[in-house]
């Protein structure tokens, strides 16, 4: 199509810029939510948390971010409708990126707890339903996504509740919790390694395997993932041998040394959290960009089966890393200072429950909110009588905020959509 040859480069540049800005925002603000619990429970210093986040956010985005990206890119809208007017889809995706970026900037400035995922999904649904036609939205898929927003915090809460209960029974309630902690914690480390490896093998590397003519059965993957889990558990066990019991710490609290053992475990769960977050949230930034790039590069053919260029995920991953390096530092510090009541034995249960939920959602291509999932996980630990005090009013406002975010993202995106159409005389 003529339109795309004329404006193709500028459209892609614009989309890449917006996508990078979104990814920057995710890195600057969102990662701190995912990793703040580690810093708050003193398991990691801010520097360590940033380093872990950089490596594992990037790995998660690159290795396991494909499914969610593809949902954002073509799952929410019904591509058949756009067959005749691919330029509308390009404008729409650009507007969605701009709208979500705008809304997040406003919300962050005002201090509202909003979700990146909700803003981008709201924005895409908005331009498609109002800007084009209600039929342009794949309502079935949107329904599934909204359901997953309800289910994910509950699921994370349940997993975290059970994890914390298992810690109680295996370690905290035993006669020698310190020795028991050293014995059982490698099992949790195994789970962390297994989880990440499994999702990477099943979903992330699928395309790599296909290109090389390889295929792994579910059983093969499980076997490899178990091996990875074993290696992780062994590394963890080695780190655990370095934790020596310091009786002077037990004068004030008899569990002080047990918590030091859990702090080692939290390094691993922090990695899994960063990986999970990268695998789910980077899609918010690069999904629309991927849509724009594929339409423009195929000259307007929406149904063309183009794979996603890897530079797009790379761009998203780099955006997160730059966001972390420029601003995430400060946010992480602030959040870490405010979370003082979460000890490593609880922080790990919350993080692992949330990470497992998010990673599973990423595998199935569902864009969920990491922050909401983590809130659900924290509540799960709270229900097991594990946390001193939780502010329910704040929990309510976090969960209610997505009700506001959906129409806000949609409204802005509709506005930008018509502005774009006018600007390009379409």
């Amino acid at each position: 199509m003529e339109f795309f040859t004329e404006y193709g480069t500028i459209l892609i540049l614009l989309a890449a810029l917006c996508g990078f800005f979104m990814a920057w925002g995710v890195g600057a603000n969102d990662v701190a939510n995912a990793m703040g619990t580690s810093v708050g429970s003193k398991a990691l210093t801010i520097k360590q948390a940033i380093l872990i986040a950089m490596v594992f956010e990037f790995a998660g985005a690159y290795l396991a971010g494909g499914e969610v990206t593809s949902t954002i890119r073509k799952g929410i809208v019904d591509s058949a409708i756009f067959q005749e007017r691919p330029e509308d889809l390009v404008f729409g995706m650009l507007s969605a990126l701009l709208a979500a970026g705008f809304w997040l900037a406003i919300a962050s400035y005002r201090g509202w707890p909003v979700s990146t995922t909700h803003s981008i999904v709201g924005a895409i649904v908005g331009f498609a339903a109002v800007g084009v036609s209600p039929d342009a939205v794949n309502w079935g898929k949107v329904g599934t996504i909204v359901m997953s927003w309800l289910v994910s915090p509950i699921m994370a809460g349940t997993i975290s509740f059970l994890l914390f209960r298992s810690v109680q029974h295996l370690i905290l309630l035993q006669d020698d919790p310190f020795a028991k902690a050293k014995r059982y914690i490698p099992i949790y480390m195994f789970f962390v390694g297994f989880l990440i490896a499994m999702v990477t093998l099943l979903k992330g590397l699928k395309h790599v395997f296909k290109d090389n003519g390889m295929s792994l059965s579910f059983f093969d993957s499980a076997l490899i993932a178990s091996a990875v889990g074993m290696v992780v558990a062994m590394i963890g066990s080695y780190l655990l041998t370095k934790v020596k019991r310091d009786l002077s710490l037990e004068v004030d609290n008899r569990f002080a040394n047990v918590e030091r053992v859990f702090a080692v475990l939290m390094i691993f769960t922090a990695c899994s959290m960063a990986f999970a977050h990268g695998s789910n949230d980077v899609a918010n930034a690069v999904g629309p960009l991927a849509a724009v790039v594929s339409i423009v590069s195929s000259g307007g053919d929406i149904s063309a089966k183009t794979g996603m260029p890897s530079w797009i995920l790379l761009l998203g991953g780099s955006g997160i890393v730059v966001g972390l390096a420029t601003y995430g530092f400060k946010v992480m510090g602030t959040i870490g200072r405010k979370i003082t009541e979460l000890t490593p034995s609880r922080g790990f249960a919350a993080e692992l429950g949330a990470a497992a939920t998010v990673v599973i959602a990423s595998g199935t291509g569902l864009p969920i909110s990491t922050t909401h999932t983590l809130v659900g996980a924290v509540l799960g630990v709270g229900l097991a009588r594990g946390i001193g005090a939780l502010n329910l009013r704040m929990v309510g406002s976090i969960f209610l905020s997505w009700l506001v975010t959906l129409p806000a993202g949609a409204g802005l995106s509709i506005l930008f959509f018509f502005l774009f159409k006018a600007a390009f005389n379409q």
Partner: protein
Amino acid sequence: MTLGNSISNIFGVSPIKPLQNHMAEVINCVSKLEDFLNTAFDDDWDKAATVFDAISANEQSADDLKKQFRMHMPKSLFMPVSRGDLLSILTQQDHIANLTKDICGIILGRQMAIPKALRSDFIGFADSSVETCKKAHGAINELDELLETGFAGSEVKFVQKLIRELATQEQKVDKKELKLRKKLFNLEAELPPVNVMFMYNIIDQIGALADTAEQIGNQVELLLAK
């Protein structure tokens, strides 16, 4: 950008540490009772006034801690223990400090002459009562360990043991109170009636210290109930 967009806001301040700090201040206050009674028995009212000032200062600072605690206890907090239970423990802890100040205030204000014959029984009774308060403090000090274990298992048994000891101590106080009352009853005909009335009043209040401490133990036990 401001940073309200964060998960940290859902974490409230745990009520355990502030409650323990308040109890520590209350114990600072009530432990000075023995000193005070000794100065009173020695008729050293200048020194008694100094001790009383220190007791008042402790009581005041416990009061401040109590107010701060309540300010940080909005109804929207979700805690592993009930807000009502915590607040009533706080009230009882504070009651111990108030009682101590009242006891000493009356003795100092009236420059009360307690018969020297009662001295050892009286001091012994007061000490026992203060000891009960200290045992309640011991139970309160276990609250952070209870939170760590999620209010379950051997820690619960340990705290229940502490509470049983607390109850036994309170019974000892009751026996000493009975004995002291009997001795005072034998002497009361020779003493000015108004003085005697106030002496009984003081004995009541010292007994109330131990009763309150036992109440705290009972409340802690309620926290353990599932």
